[in-house]
């Protein structure tokens, strides 16, 4: 008994000795940390973000949220929650303190309200654009909830008869052009100029179909054909604008190769795909059963440093990529614990926090970066700002936490290459599986070596054949001498 007591005492003492942050490293996140290696395998990785706070309106002056659909965070940190079930907008400051709510506004002297709105966007001068879905309009309000205008069903030659305008998402660029996504609109993004006049569709997805379906269509009779499903391009389901006015979109196609796109002003997809894998979220997934199939992105958000995070509505995961298309980290999941979701619908950055809005649980989850997440974010940020050295330092720290983090090796390699440490850079690019930069480093290294040993090389080039022929001549002479000697004998 005495020994047992001693043992327990010893264990307690040891536990007290361990600093608390070590104990909380594996702490209580309800999802696995993983990432995809260069070889397309899911490998364990450090947890990048952990849930810190849940905002659902309980015990607050604005009351419970109900089936919220969208969220928008402005540059100065104000959070606009589109509380669709209550047909209102709740505005919070960056500390999640209530500022005000907008549930009605005066439209031409009459009190007007929203009806099941699904999208919100706030411009730099704090004008609020709401995709007021069931009222079939986009409403623009000032910061003080004064009605400015509404944009209703566009009217133009290119619009099909029977076109119905149910805007679900909206975004406004710096020039005041308004982009909207409409329910059932597969022509692309609906674009309006700053006066709210319809100017056209942009960035239409291409029609995809499989060859067998096409074959059937070709050999079918007209009557059969009329009863077949149409080949229809995929509709977008969400959009976000980055600092330079490019539009990031997600679409609702299953198992698509391009679920994430970055559209330039002419509607072309210009996203960079220099990572190891296509930008499709999960690479390994079940093909049958619940939650089968590839990731299904429902929202995307971009930060000021080109990083973007896409929200997979199917498995509740968040995939963060850098501007080159490297998959940085993955977190989140479906579940009923803090940090998991039931029906996640929207995501947004608040500085380096990530806010995820869950329609199913009617709540907003605030994720804070862990040390690992913070270091990765810093490394990406400094690289984006052009400070390779500082970025490399952060990557070194990242490697200390996760030595299998292949992207970090590339980051450090790039910095070494800049400094002219070609040989070391080669090792890092090898570890990072980056052939493009490896080749660059190797080319310089090879030149360096050749230049250094130019004398030796040229010497060999000249000496080896010279000595060979010299040897031959000597041999021949000896033979001749021998023959002459023989004859003489």
């Amino acid at each position: 008994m005495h020994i047992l007591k001693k043992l327990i005492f010893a264990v307690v003492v040891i536990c007290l000795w361990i600093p608390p942050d070590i104990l909380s490293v594996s702490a209580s996140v309800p999802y696995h940390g993983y990432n995809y290696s260069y070889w397309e395998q899911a490998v364990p990785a450090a947890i990048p973000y952990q849930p810190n706070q849940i905002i659902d309106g309980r015990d607050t002056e604005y009351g419970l949220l109900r089936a919220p659909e969208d969220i928008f965070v402005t540059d100065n940190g104000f959070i606009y929650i589109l509380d669709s079930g209550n047909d209102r907008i709740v505005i919070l400051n960056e500390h999640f303190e209530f500022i005000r709510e907008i549930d009605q506004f005066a439209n031409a002297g009459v009190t007007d309200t929203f009806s099941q709105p699904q999208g919100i966007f706030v411009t730099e001068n704090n004008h609020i654009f709401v995709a007021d879905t069931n009222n079939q309009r986009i409403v623009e309000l000032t910061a003080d909830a004064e009605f400015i205008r509404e944009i209703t069903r566009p009217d133009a030659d290119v619009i099909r008869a029977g076109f119905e305008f149910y805007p679900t998402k909206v975004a406004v660029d710096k020039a005041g052009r308004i982009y909207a996504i409409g329910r059932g609109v597969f022509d692309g993004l609906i674009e309006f100029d700053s006066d709210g006049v319809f100017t056209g569709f942009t960035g239409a997805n291409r029609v995809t179909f499989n060859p067998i379906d096409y074959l059937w269509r070709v050999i079918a009779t007209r009557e059969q054909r009329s009863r077949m499903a149409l080949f229809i391009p995929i509709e977008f389901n969400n959009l976000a604008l980055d600092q330079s006015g490019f539009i990031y979109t997600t679409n609702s196609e299953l198992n698509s190769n391009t679920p994430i796109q970055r559209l330039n002003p002419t509607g072309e997809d210009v996203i960079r795909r220099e990572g190891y894998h296509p930008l499709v979220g999960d690479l390994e997934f079940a093909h049958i059963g619940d939650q089968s199939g590839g990731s299904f992105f429902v929202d995307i958000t971009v930060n000021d440093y080109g990083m973007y995070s896409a929200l997979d509505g199917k498995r509740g995961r968040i995939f963060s990529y850098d501007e080159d298309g490297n998959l940085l980290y993955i977190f989140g999941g479906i579940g009923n614990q803090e940090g998991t979701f039931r029906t996640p619908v929207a995501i947004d950055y608040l500085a380096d926090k990530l806010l995820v809005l869950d329609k199913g649980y009617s709540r907003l989850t605030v994720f804070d970066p862990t040390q690992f997440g913070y270091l990765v974010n810093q490394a990406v940020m400094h690289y984006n700002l052009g400070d390779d050295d500082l970025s490399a330092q952060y990557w070194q720290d990242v490697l200390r936490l996760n030595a299998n983090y292949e992207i970090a090796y590339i980051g450090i390699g790039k910095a070494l290459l800049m400094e002219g440490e070609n040989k070391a850079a080669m090792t890092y690019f090898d570890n990072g599986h980056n052939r493009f930069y490896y080749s660059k480093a190797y080319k310089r290294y090879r030149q360096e070596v050749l230049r250094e040993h130019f004398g030796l090389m040229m010497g060999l080039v000249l000496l080896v054949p010279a000595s060979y022929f010299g040897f031959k001549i000597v041999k021949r002479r000896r033979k001749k001498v021998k023959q002459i000697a023989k004859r003489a004998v």
Partner: protein
Amino acid sequence: MRNELFKYPFYVCVRPFKGFWDLKYEEKGRTKLGLAILAILTIIVILKRQYSGFIVNFNNPNQLNSIDELIFIVFPFFLFAISNWSITTLMEGEGKFKEIVMVTAYALVPMVMVNSATIIISQFITREEVPLYYFLEGTALIWFLGLLFVGIMTVHQYTVAKTVGTFCLTLIVMGIIIFLGLLFFSLIQQMYAFIETIYREIVYRL
């Protein structure tokens, strides 16, 4: 004499018509040497998987398996030899099985040479020079196919058209052999399962 035997495969590479003729009628080839060439090629290809330069090496080191090379080199080699022999004996080919094996193996010499060269070259190339690497690889393959064609033609004393015909038939026969092999193993498996089931039933009932 021995020295000449070792030099002969290289002579065949550059003078295939005369080389293969002498191989058959002057007995300048050795089956053992042919099999040695095959073994060397297998080793070279294993080395290539493991050690070719990073720029052109896309193999996952965790998944390399030297036994696989037997399946991808030695097995097709004998599959080809057997299929070709089965076809040509029926089509008045003059070649013996031993000669077919020898000719096929001697034709592999350029593959051995070029592949061992490219392993070394691949250590010293950049991305811009990669096409050169693949060009060499392609050359080796075409060279091999050319030698194989000439060799089979000479050994069987065929015309060009007949050689092309037998090659096509050989491919078909290779397919048939693989099919029969799979069928055989699948049947064995089924029978094994059947016997095992009966045994279990009996054991349970006793």
